[in-house]
């Protein structure tokens, strides 16, 4: 009866909070205490308690969560939004500050054309309606890193509205089910970034760096169409890829170029939305997902215990893994918006509305910007699927890992191996090794050329898959050897002498008559055992595929081929799975 409404997207990995039943009356019996604020190990305990609590409350209402996001992306531009100061990450403090950035009296804003173009392009890529007229407003609050006492933003009439962002989520046990989702985009507005405040607790002083003050930001407001941390994190990742593809923002979260605030509430389906909290301070996709999921649970627990949710701003403490109220955001802020008197309305054109005598340097033409939009990630993925017969989830992974797509394409360029094989090696072996050592693609000890050469060796059956794995491991150690050198040093070449292989096979069969009998009785394991024995005798240099071509001593039955497909998983203890005795018809190849 209580259908799982609050479904986590990757129920396999993450602890599930699907259908957590309401139980305010029984709530006293519910587990209390800070479940998730502690160490990681406590999670499983919490999970057990949760599922126990669920059983007690069968038949009551479940909760559903509503998540909306506000994303700030720093515009990739040479100069700031309203001043000529350079934009540069990690410059010496206060070295990139014009009189305007320090808000000296009498200075006036001059709008940066590049920032407007970036906003229009981003809006178009996110299917927004571009407002040909937009307005700037001042948003007032006192903060040490906001020298003017206000931020120039677009509160009333932003440059782009009513868009959408499509993203795909992998679910299922093996993350192999791809579900497409869409989140609506309320608006995109241009605004100034603030400076940075550094608190020196030791000397009890506050230091201000205005290098960031006045850099152009795109604030992208996503409607509350998401329902868990994973969805939010995936939507943000897709937005990040789009911004990077467009070049409108470098969107590196760790550098603060992409910052996310989440609005979260929970309610019972069919009832009005609950009171929402805002969680700030989310500077990585992982913390974003964690913070949202934590906050959803906190709200449910609070309500079930008869408490109420306050409309407050909280920050995520990544060390404790929980959200805490922000002290300096206590009390209701009134931003006292006022139209920015120093900036006229921003008017942009399309080809139809462009005045005939307009100076191209002085106007922005939406249609021209539309023509300049590069290939978007969704199209890139579609192409990968079509061109290489890749599975959609594989195309997702290729784009999600920074630099992985480029690595893949470089390998493809240099190898004769089939794209499917390349995909498998890049996504399983290569990515597996990277993940194990927590390395970025750019930090990989194995170059695309080396992998391509290795796959060539494999492709022309110079080595077995098992040997290829061994070579890869050697390559990973990065001792400057080529795959060919490693193969010859370690004597990993496959036995090419067919007659010798036949003799060896026959000898093994003669030595193990019982196994041969089992095989003839149709025990599929028996042939694997024989193959294993031969490989052992040859130090893994016998080609298992070739062994199928060895006619049995009585030479009556036709030899059976193995299917040429192999799966590579670094985690598997037997990287070279035993060939199937009877492959499906369509996968058979005639010699």
């Amino acid at each position: 009866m209580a259908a799982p409404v609050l479904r986590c997207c990757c129920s396999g990995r993450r602890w599930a909070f699907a259908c957590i039943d309401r139980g305010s009356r029984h709530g006293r019996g519910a587990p209390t205490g800070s479940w998730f604020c502690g160490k990681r190990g406590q999670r499983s305990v919490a999970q057990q308690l949760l599922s126990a609590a669920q059983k007690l409350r069968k038949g009551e209402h479940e909760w559903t969560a509503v998540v909306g996001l506000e994303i700030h992306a720093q515009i990739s531009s040479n100069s700031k939004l309203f001043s000529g100061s350079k934009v540069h990450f990690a410059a010496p403090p206060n070295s990139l500050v014009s009189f305007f950035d320090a808000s000296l009296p009498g200075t006036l804003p001059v709008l940066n054309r590049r920032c407007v173009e970036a906003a229009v392009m981003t809006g178009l890529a996110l299917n927004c309606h571009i407002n040909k007229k937009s307005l700037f407003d001042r948003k007032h609050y006192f903060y040490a890193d906001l020298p003017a006492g206000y931020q120039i933003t677009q509160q009333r009439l932003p440059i782009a509205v009513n868009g959408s962002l499509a993203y795909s989520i992998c679910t299922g046990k093996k993350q192999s089910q791809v579900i497409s989702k869409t989140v609506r985009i309320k608006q995109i507005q241009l605004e100034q970034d603030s400076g940075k405040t550094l608190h020196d607790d030791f000397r009890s002083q506050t230091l201000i760096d205005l290098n960031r003050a006045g850099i152009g930001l795109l604030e992208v407001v996503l409607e509350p169409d998401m329902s868990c941390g994973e969805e939010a994190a995936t939507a943000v990742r897709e937005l990040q890829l789009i911004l990077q593809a467009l070049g409108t923002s470098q969107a590196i979260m760790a550098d603060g170029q992409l910052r996310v605030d989440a609005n979260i509430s929970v309610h019972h389906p069919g009832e009005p939305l609950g009171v929402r909290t805002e969680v700030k301070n989310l500077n990585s996709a992982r913390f974003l997902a964690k913070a949202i999921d934590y906050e959803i649970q906190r709200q449910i627990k609070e309500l079930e215990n008869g408490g109420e949710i306050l409309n407050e701003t909280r920050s995520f403490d990544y060390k404790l893994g929980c959200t805490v109220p922000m002290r300096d955001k206590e009390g209701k802020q009134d931003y006292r918006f006022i139209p920015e008197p120093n900036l006229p309305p921003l008017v942009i054109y399309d080809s139809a509305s462009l005045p005939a005598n307009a100076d191209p340097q002085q106007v922005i033409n939406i249609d021209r910007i539309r023509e300049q939009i590069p290939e978007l990630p969704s199209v890139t993925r579609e192409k990968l699927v079509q061109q290489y017969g890749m599975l959609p989830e594989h195309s997702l992974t290729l784009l999600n890992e920074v630099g992985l797509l480029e690595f893949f394409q470089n390998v493809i360029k240099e190898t004769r191996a089939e794209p499917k094989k390349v995909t498998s090696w890049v996504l399983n072996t290569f990515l597996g090794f990277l993940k194990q050592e927590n390395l970025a693609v750019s930090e990989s000890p194995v170059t695309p050329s080396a992998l391509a050469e290795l796959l060539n060796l494999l492709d022309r059956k110079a080595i077995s898959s098992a040997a290829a794995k061994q070579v890869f491991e050697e390559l990973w150690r990065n001792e400057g050897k080529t795959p060919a050198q490693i193969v010859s040093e370690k004597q990993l070449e496959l036995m090419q002498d067919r007659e010798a292989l036949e003799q060896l096979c026959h000898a093994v069969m003669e030595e193990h008559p019982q196994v041969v009998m089992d095989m003839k009785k149709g025990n599929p394991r028996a042939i694997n055992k024989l193959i294993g024995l031969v490989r052992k005798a040859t130090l893994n240099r016998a080609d298992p595929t070739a062994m199928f071509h060895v006619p049995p001593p009585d030479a009556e039955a036709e030899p059976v081929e193995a299917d040429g497909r192999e799966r590579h998983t670094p985690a598997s203890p037997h990287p070279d799975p035993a060939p199937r005795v009877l492959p499906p018809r369509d996968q058979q190849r005639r010699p």
Partner: protein
Amino acid sequence: MLPNLTDVSKLCIGIPKEYLVPELSSEVQSLWFKAANLFESGGAKVIEVSLPHTSYSSVCYQVLCTSEVASNMARFDGLEYGHRCDIDVSTEAMYAATRQEGFNDVVKGRILAGNFFLLKENYENYFIKAQKVRRLIANDFVNVFNSGVDVLLTPTILSEAIPYVEFIKEDNRTRSAQNDIFTQAVNMAGLPAVSVPVALSEQGLPLGLQFIGRAFCDQQLLTIAKWFEKQVQFPVIQLQELIDDHQSFKMKS
């Protein structure tokens, strides 16, 4: 250089009837009418016009001006420049004391009023309404200029120039309510205007009149003002003569 106007016969001069207020000094009033006659005798058409929303300009200005003041003064927080108090218990305490010490009562009053008008619950009723009234005031001018008027001729202030001792007697608000009425509306409408000294009062203090032009027709406005300035021959203090006198005096001694 501005062109020299020789013929005013093709001009149409508007005299806004709402500017003839009881508080207007008789000296200024007679000067104003004299000026109108001067144009008329030069062949210009002089007509009475109406700017019906003039009386709302003062209260409208109070809302819009104080709101902008509240916003513009926000930057004086003692951090980057200007006065900073000695209090350093917290940034907020520093802001408060700095602004308390640094601003006089007029500025503080404007900041408080402006922030009040900009509060979320007041914004519609005050700021937006004031903007609408400002639009009506601006439209008054548009209508007058559309009816064929080239420039408006008005007093600049109610009386002769006010001596400093008198000026500081009144508080700022009363002062502007009294004396800004002829200059306020034009500024809110965003139009060009120029005040031309015309004559000396019985007290020997300058009396001026104002011309208001169409938007972006500043040159036409100044050309007319220049013609008028030539006709009235205001007894300008000849600074160069004073300097020369001073130098010859120095040389003698």
